[in-house]
Structures are given as structure tokens and as C-alpha cells.
């Protein structure tokens, strides 16, 4: 008994240290540190209003990154998500303009998102075509299909009640930020404490071993993609209700931004490793960097280069941290 307590006493400060040295902590420190540094240069950056605007305008990326992280942890990847968000936003907006009940316009993207992604997941899992091929193909199909169907006509005249993103809870927390937090916490909890949540890690870590543990990897893949579709639906909703115009085209490079958030958040592209808290923090960091560069008067021509360097630094810091951990 004494022996075990001893081990515990030894283990817990170590575990604390380990937690502090995690990718999530690193990102949280980066988010706060960057805010402080930029705040010193230009105090306006720290205004509540600005910080909340950074979150507000990018919450949809974080929400989509939650689903993307699950997909990547399960050993897959999805590059069609940007196109899908474009499609779902259009679906939702079209319904709203056609006068569908508001609740329908909000639920429709979720349902369609789940269906489209589950379909892709099924092709990947049961026909066994690599995810990158299916989603690359789907990227084209959705993108071309959207333009073909809508002719790129913008959706305007959206009813006021449609604008979910304008709702503020308790007069303080904007809906998108609220949803981002809820989605992250829910997903984090679910992936840690539910059996299906763990199967994502199992399948991503070693699909064959998972099969021998009684997990059905194909079913897990479909499940992960369906969930990803759900989060893409939420993201599309936030995207669509932000402005009073919906473009009916695919947001450029959105998939890359979302994947970047996931991998900077510490999700291993090889599958089996990562958390959604990390990816949400990374999405926030990336958004914060974009805003910070404007606030610090970095020449607009160099903004993207600086962004690239900062992402590179985050990634390399993570790799070095992991290596140090491995050798400790």
C-alpha cells in the first residue's frame, strides 16, 4: 500500500509537468503570449471587443477543425470539407430565402452534412479507396456541382431571424463562440470517455489490432465521417449566418486552413494521436496571428510569409518538445 502511494506521490507532479508540456498547453501559452506581446505594441488589440471579434469571425474554422481532427486521428483525411461547407451554407440559405421555418434552415445543413460525409465514409471504408482520393474527387464534384446548380447566384434577402450568429447569449457570448466552446468540450469529452470515441484512436492507431478487439474499422470510419459531417454542418451554419449574403461558391482554401488548424493543434497525420482542444486552440492562434499582423503594422505584402514562419515555429516547437519528452 505504501509503495503504491509512494509511486503516486512521485507520479502526480510528473504528470502535472507532462500536462504543462503538452501541445495544448504550448498553444494556450502561445495564444496568451501573443496577445500580450501585441497588446504591448498596440493596446487596442487587447480590447474585449477585438478579442471577441477574432473568435467570432473564426469560430466556424475551429468547429470544422474539431471534425477534421477526428477524421485525421482515425487515420483518414478529408480535403472536401471546404467545398462541403460552401454547399451546406447554400442549402441553408436557399431554404431560408424560400421561407422554410428557421429551425429547418438550421437543421438542414447538419443533416445534409452528415449524409454526404457518411456517404464518403462508406465509400472509403467499404470500397476501400483511400480517403484522400475520395475526398479529392468529392472536392471537385461538390465545387462544380454547386456552381452548376446555383450558377453562382448570390443569396441575398435573408430573413433577419436566420442569423444565428447574431444571437448573443447572456448579452455577452456570441452564439458562434458559444457553439465553438460547446463543440470542443463535447467532442473532447466524448473522445476521452466514450467507447465509440476511443475506437477513433484505436482504428487510427492500428486498424488490424482494432478489428481483433472486436471493433469494426469500416463502421468506425463511417461514424467518424458522419460526425465530421455534423461539425461541418455547424461550421457551415456559422459561416452562412455571419453575413447577409451567401456567396454560393466554395470558400477558397478553406480545407487547407482547417487541416492546418488540426495539425498545428497536435493531431498526428499518421493517425491515433491528438485532441480537439489542441485543434481549437490552434484555430484560435491562427486567427489571432492574422489579426495581430494587421495590428502590428506588418507590411501587408509580408503578412503571409510571417504567418508561414509562425506556423513553422509552432510545429517545430511541438516536434522538439515531443522529442525531449521521448528521451526524458
Amino acid at each position, binding site marked *: 500500500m505504501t509503495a503504491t502511494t509512494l509511486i503516486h506521490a512521485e507520479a502526480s507532479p510528473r504528470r502535472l509537468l507532462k500536462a504543462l508540456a503538452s501541445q495544448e498547453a504550448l498553444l494556450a501559452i502561445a495564444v496568451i503570449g501573443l496577445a500580450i506581446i501585441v497588446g504591448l505594441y498596440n493596446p487596442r488589440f487587447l480590447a474585449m471587443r477585438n478579442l471577441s471579434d477574432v473568435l467570432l469571425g473564426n469560430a466556424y474554422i475551429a468547429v470544422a477543425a474539431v471534425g477534421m481532427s477526428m477524421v485525421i486521428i482515425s487515420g483518414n483525411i478529408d480535403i472536401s470539407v471546404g467545398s462541403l461547407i460552401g454547399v451546406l451554407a447554400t442549402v441553408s440559405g436557399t431554404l431560408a430565402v424560400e421561407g422554410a421555418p428557421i429551425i429547418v434552415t438550421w437543421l438542414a445543413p447538419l443533416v445534409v452534412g452528415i449524409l454526404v460525409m457518411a456517404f464518403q465514409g462508406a465509400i472509403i471504408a467499404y470500397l476501400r479507396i483511400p480517403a484522400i482520393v475520395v475526398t479529392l474527387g468529392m472536392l471537385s464534384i461538390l465545387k462544380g456541382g454547386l456552381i452548376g446548380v446555383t450558377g453562382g447566384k448570390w443569396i441575398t434577402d435573408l430573413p433577419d431571424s436566420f442569423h444565428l450568429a447574431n444571437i448573443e447569449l447572456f448579452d455577452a457570448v456570441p452564439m458562434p463562440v458559444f457553439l465553438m466552446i460547446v463543440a470542443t468540450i463535447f467532442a473532447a469529452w466524448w473522445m*476521452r470517455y*466514450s467507447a465509440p470515441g476511443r475506437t477513433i484512436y*484505436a482504428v487510427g*492507431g492500428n486498424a488490424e489490432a482494432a478489428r*481483433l478487439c*472486436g471493433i469494426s474499422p469500416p463502421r468506425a470510419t463511417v461514424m467518424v465521417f458522419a460526425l465530421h459531417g455534423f461539425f461541418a454542418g455547424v461550421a457551415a451554419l456559422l459561416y452562412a449566418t455571419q453575413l447577409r449574403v451567401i456567396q454560393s461558391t466554395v470558400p477558397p482554401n478553406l480545407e487547407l486552413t482547417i487541416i492546418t488548424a488540426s495539425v498545428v493543434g497536435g493531431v498526428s497525420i499518421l493517425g491515433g494521436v491528438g485532441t480537439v482542444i489542441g485543434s481549437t486552440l490552434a484555430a484560435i492562434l491562427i486567427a489571432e496571428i492574422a489579426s495581430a499582423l494587421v495590428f502590428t503594422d506588418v507590411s501587408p505584402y509580408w503578412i503571409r510569409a510571417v504567418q508561414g514562419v509562425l506556423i513553422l515555429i509552432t510545429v517545430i516547437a511541438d516536434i522538439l518538445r515531443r522529442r525531449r519528452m521521448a*528521451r526524458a
Partner: protein
Amino acid sequence: MANDQALRETAAPPRLSVYNIEKSFPGVNALTGVSFNVAKGEVHALLGENGAGKSTLIKIVSGVFPPDRGEVIVDGKPVNLARPDDARRAGIATIYQELLLFPELTVAENVFMGHAPRAGLGRLDWRAMREKTRHLLAALEIHDLHADRVVGSLSVGNRQRVEILRALSQDARILIMDEPTAALTEYDVTRLFDIVRKLKARGVAVIYISHRLDEIFAIADRVTVLRDGAHIATKRVADTAAAELVQLMVGRKIESLFPKITLPIGGPVLEVKDLERRPLTKRISLTVRAGEIVGLAGLVGSGRSELAQTIFGVTPAEGGEIKIRGQAVYIRSPAQARTLGIAYVPEDRGTQGLVRPMTVRENFSLAALGKVAFGGFIDRAAERKLASDGVKCFAVKTSSLEQIAGKLSGGNQQKIVLGKWLANKPKLLILDEPTRGIDVGAKAEIHRLMGELAAQGLAILMISSELPEVLGMSDRVLVMREGRIVAEFLREDATQETVGAAMMGSHESAEKVA
């Protein structure tokens, strides 16, 4: 022998029986009508050469493959084992030969994947999971493996232990173990057998596969011998002897198991002085001479593989000195080690030794590409010749040179890994568990080969967890413990007791003697 009585007394149907199982893969008839049964509380051993079909048989019983024909019956009722989950529901737990683990997850989670304890709302109970894992570890008297360690950072031996924990955690009625001790030392084997005996007493039926005959005699009640996918015989262990089993297995007589010939020993090929590589290699000094076989014994995790990999340049040294034939060298990579004439046959053939999806031909030439290429261009004919020579020399059981290497049985894979290095004509051969998972016939073959190679002046450093092998093959035995070389014995001084005591350290050896 109380068990024999139990066997006779129970008129109840056997716990598990398989009837007339047939299974073929493209180009191979892996099983041709195999039947046998296991009673409640019986340990039933499966024996056979590499590729005899043992793993295939148990994979059918575990629901991994569907059989082409035949039936699996549990407690008198035929069961349809379409998926591994069905087998688990039928009370069957399996330790597979290939370590199938989740490298990114912790020991506890690996053990309980798929059947984790739940708390309210279907929530996983992490605390209970860790707690139960600790209990299992305690039951096996494993003190150096923590439930929270990430499996990817464990040595092969520890991974094998995790596999065992996983099977034990399922509270199965039928426990299948496919070479569970291949990566374990005697110390672990003893603990495992204690557990198996306890399970047996509880009425669990156990199928046990091993190439180590002594284990079969130590634990099994009956033994079934397979050869080329066919059922050859089922014997009661009490009524048979090793020689008979070997003959049944290979269909001929095997001479001596450890045909050690003493040879004149030449000058030093490898000299290591104060070699350091944190955290596991600490101030190691040793010498291996031409024509000499040096055995390296130690417990799981004692750092033998780490040492070998430091010499081989996988994890370059941080201090100390390595000399090859008197020349001081600094080895930064395996590529460099190879050009210096060092060969390393790693312990984990699945991930380190073999490129499983590539063909037998390609695997054979992998370490000797320079020998079959001219100016960087591969000479296909020379490559084929190299590979077919290797297949012949090592009697690799393969349908063709273009067979995917990963589809061969475990033992045949090992032969390819060994063969590919010998094709490079090295001066120093480091063997890490060279006969793990290899049948007696092939093992004798490999041992004979080692003798021949030494006779040709090759220096051999052999890491083995099988003490009889170390004792039988080595000119000298080094013992490692916690990253240091703690003892050295000449062939004549090395015995089970002396070497074992050095491996354990003083207090544990005292325990073992007691």
C-alpha cells in the same frame, strides 16, 4: 495429473472442438482438414514447423479468417465466427503471434480496448481501467511496467507482456496463446505459467503454441502436431518424448540441437570501450573476435537491443569508442555500419527486419543491393539468383520468389531477414533473438549455420533470451543488467545457475533458487 482424471470424468462435451477445418490462400493450402479438441481445464499444445498452419488454425478459431470448410464447436454448440467479436462473445481470448497493439495508447487502454470498464452513462471508467491493469500486472509479478506507459515506447518483451495482459483481462473460457513466450525471458515465462495453471484450475481451456519443447512439457496436457497443414497426431504429453514430437513435426530425425564446434579464434573484430548512449547504454566495454560467438544474456529491458542498435548506428553513441578490426570508427547510421561490414538481425522482424509488402526477392537483396547493382542499376538476373540461392540455402517455404514476404509464416520471415544480411558478406554479425519463433528444424539449421559462419571467421554477437541457446552456442557469455555488463563467463563456466543469477541480480536470484 489430477487433470487427466478430470478429463476422463467429464462426460460433458469438450469446451472447444474443431472439425475438419480447411483453409487455403492463393497458392497455399494452409490447412487440409484439421480436427482436435480441448477440454475444460486442459492445456493443449499445438506444435509444428514454421508454416505448418498453427497460426492460421487459431485465427480461424478467433474469427479472424473464415474457414473454407469445417466447423468450430464451443461447449457442444456449433458457433459461427464471422468476426473477432463473435469469438470474444463465445468466450475466446487470443494472444496473436504478431504483436497487434495500439502504439499511441497506454498499457491500460491497450489491455482494455473493446471491453473497457464503464461508469455511469456508459462513460469509460479510466480509474478502474488503470486499477485493473495494475492488478493484472501484480498478478504476473511485473513491477517494471507502468499502466500509464505509452505502448509505442516499450521493448518487444514488454509488448508481449501487454498482449498477455490483454488476453487475461477478458476472463475468457478459452485462452489461445500463439507463441506468447517468444519474446519473454525465463523469469517471465515462469510467472506466465503460474497464471496458466491458475486458469486451468478454474476450468479455462488453453491452446498453447510454442516452438520451445521444454515449455510444452512443462505446461501442456496434450499436444497436437501439424505438418504442412495436416493433422499428424495428438498425444498426451505424459506419453511422449521430445524426440518423438520432433520427428512427428519434421518427419525426420534431428541431430543435435546446439551443434557447437570449438574453433580457433582469431583477432578482435569488434572492440567497444566505455560506450555510452543514454538512457540505457552505460559504459559498455566488450570485444568480439573473428570466429567467436559471444552470447549476450539479460532480462527484458536490460538494454541488450539498445546496445546492439548503438553499435549498428541506429542510435549513435554519445560517448566511448568503437573499433572495427582495430580501426576506430564513429558509426552514425546503419548505412555506414553496413559498409563497415556490420550486420544486424533485429529482434522485431515485423517492423524492423522485413519489408512485409515487398516480395521475397526484393527482401533478400535489400541489404546487399550494392552486390547486385552496377553503377546504381539493379541487375535483375543477379538479384533473382541472389534470392533463389538464399531461398535454397535457408529452405524458405515460399510459393515463389515473387511471393509477398509478409504472407509467409513467421519462421520463414525470420529466415529471410537472416539471409538478406548474410548476402552482404559481413564481418560482424549481431543477432538479436535470432531464433525467436523458429521451429526446431529451422532452429537447428540456423545454429548449424552460425557455427559454419564462425568457422569462416565471422565474429558473432548473439542476443538471446533463451538461456539454453545462449549456453549451447556461445564461446563466451556476457550478462547485461540495467544497461551495464555485469558478468562475463567462459563457455565452461556458464551454467543455468551462474548466468541466471547474474541476470537477476542477487536478491531475485535468491528468490528463484528458493
